[in-house]
């Protein structure tokens, strides 16, 4: 990593400079296109996701959800009589790539809006680019700082203060855990944020955080931290990380004989977690954006269409991507225009929009209030346990 960092940096900065030049050229390019338009021009929507790399499970699921939505829109005649074209870019799950691909989508492809990312950290990289270019972006990251970047940044899912509170309440009320330990990924904005809100709620309710241990994304050996946690003997352990590390953490914790329940957030949601953790996942819980056992009409309709197109059950990421496209369709239809500024204004006024992952009402901070679903590991997979409404 250290060996190649310098070369990569210089290539990236070259690419960034090139992209910047294109931003300057973009308005004139747009003008020449609109003069030539005779047949309905497609509405270009950009998306960036981790299609490969560490969090590939999310990126691929995100692509499936958004492609399904766009396919349905185009089959029904498009938006404002124009077909929708989805342009996907891969950030390889790498830090630093998202800003570059967002610039590329805005300047070279001239998209009217952007979708992405599942990760808060990567959303935070692309958000300033979208804000500066005045292109609306809909993120699926749950860290509150994402939408704080500016008025063009929206969100399709619940935020970490809610998620952290839900899991802290669950630990206290359902598991009876008063003494809790934390294991946080310090390189991940999502993990640090979620740990903070969880800790605040536990302490506010009279519980104690007996120990807080840290790790960095990409590490594989957590036995050192877990041995210390085991000695502190907490009643529960909260691990607000992403599934690749969480799978190893849970397996190593159980290997060391740590028996207390382990809890997490929506960063756990991926089939790879079950593959890595296996039976070690017994007595683990996390809260999620979606559950296939959700009985709302929109959710069931989405599940049916998703199954018929992809021959598999949707996870919790694809409905978010599907709903983000739904938000754009609603905004562009009501705005009657594809001008980014008008789309932004319409996105800000979305009220009670039905979605696969729940009804969406955008608040003043550009966040929707949506329910969380707590799932528990039972008989080889995570099963729905309860719904918590905001």
């Amino acid at each position, binding site marked *: 990593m250290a060996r190649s960092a310098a070369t990569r940096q210089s290539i990236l900065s070259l690419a960034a400079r090139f992209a910047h030049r294109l931003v300057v050229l973009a308005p004139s390019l747009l003008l020449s296109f609109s003069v030539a338009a005779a047949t309905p021009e497609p509405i270009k929507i950009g998306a960036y996701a981790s299609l490969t790399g*560490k969090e590939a499970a999310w990126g691929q699921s995100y692509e499936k959800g958004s492609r399904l939505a766009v396919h349905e829109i185009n089959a029904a005649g498009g938006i404002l009589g124009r077909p929708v074209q989805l342009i996907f870019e891969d950030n390889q799950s790498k830090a630093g790539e998202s800003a570059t691909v967002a610039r590329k989508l805005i300047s070279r492809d001239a998209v009217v809006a952007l979708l992405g990312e599942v990760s808060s950290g990567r959303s935070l990289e692309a958000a300033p680019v979208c804000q500066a270019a005045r292109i609306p972006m809909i993120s699926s990251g749950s860290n509150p700082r994402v939408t704080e970047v500016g008025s063009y940044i929206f969100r399709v899912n619940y935020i970490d203060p809610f998620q952290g509170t839900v899991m802290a309440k669950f630990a206290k009320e359902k598991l009876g855990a008063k003494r809790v330990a934390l294991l946080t990924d310090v390189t991940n904005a999502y993990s640090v944020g979620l740990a903070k809100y969880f800790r605040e709620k536990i302490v506010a309710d009279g519980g104690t955080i007996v120990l807080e241990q*840290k790790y960095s994304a990409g590490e*594989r*050996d957590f036995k*050192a931290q877990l041995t210390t946690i085991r000695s502190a003997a907490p009643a529960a352990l909260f691990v607000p990380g992403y599934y*690749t590390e969480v*799978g190893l953490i849970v397996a190593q914790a159980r290997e060391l004989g740590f028996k207390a329940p382990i809890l997490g957030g929506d960063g756990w949601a991926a089939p790879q977690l079950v593959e890595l953790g296996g039976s070690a996942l017994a007595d683990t819980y996390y809260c999620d954006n979606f559950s296939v056992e959700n009985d709302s009409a929109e959710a069931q309709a989405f599940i049916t269409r998703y199954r018929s197109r992809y021959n598999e059950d949707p996870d919790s990421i694809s409905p978010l991507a599907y709903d983000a496209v739904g938000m754009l369709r609603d905004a562009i239809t009501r705005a009657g225009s594809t001008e980014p500024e008008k789309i932004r204004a319409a996105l800000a006024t979305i009220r009670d929009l039905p979605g696969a992952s729940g009804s969406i009402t955008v608040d003043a901070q550009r966040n929707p209030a949506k329910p969380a679903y707590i799932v528990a590991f039972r008989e080889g997979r995570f099963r729905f346990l309860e719904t918590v409404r905001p």
Partner: protein
Amino acid sequence: MSEFLQQLLNGLSLGAIYALIALGYTMVYGVLRFINFAHSEVFMVGAFIGYYLGKLVPEGTLWGGLLVLAGAMIGCAILGILVERIVYRPLRGGPTINVLITAIGVSLLLQYTGQIVFGAAPRTFPPIFPSANFHLGTLTISSNQLFVIGVAVALMIGLQLIVFKTKIGTAMRAVSLNPKAAQLVGVNNNVVISFTFGLGSALAAAGGILYALNYPSIDPLMGVMPGLKAFVAAILGGIGNIPGAALGGLILGTVETFIGGSQFSTYKDAIAFAILIVILLFKPAGLLGKFTAEKV
């Protein structure tokens, strides 16, 4: 106390893997006086060969596991010999820095070829060996940890025997001492160097399999950090010195684990590397290395 013993055990099993990789760095350095940066990618390829071979044998059997281990070691030995034959040999005799830069190039080539061939997403390594956990009071010992330490020790003893008790080992030491003089007394340098690369790469493959058994998530960039740590371990113990590499690996793994379990866990790499700097300030040739005047 039991926490201390547990951390020590965790540290030793991590250190044993670093030691296995460090041996490859140190052997090549001993013979050719250059750092083979592609070594950490051979480690990665070893884990992937194990992943694919692991699908062919039944899970959790000793003979199946050993077969996979042997297969990966042979596969990587061939890879190491090929890399040396195709890339490094034409550059021999030129300035060392040229070979060094080329090694970095080979390292990147293997990393990114790996991303195309194996895919960039992490894979779950199959549990190829039978595993169990033993409890001694509050001390938990997994069979994987014991296995890692056992295999590492066995391979290191085997290596010592090869280097000091066999004809090819004597030739290796002769080339290391003075390649031209070795040639004059009839040592075939090409064979010795190929053998060194093959042996070092086989150890890296064993390290890769053991690493993947303990941390069963593998990807094409997995070699970068352990490779760097093993490189540090080799320097720490005295580059070119085989027991030194083993000692360096064990020290680094143990220190890293103890810091990882403390409140300073985020600084564990920083502190481990700071220790390296301090040791090198007082012992510039490493813990067991002998100081020699630079030849070039």
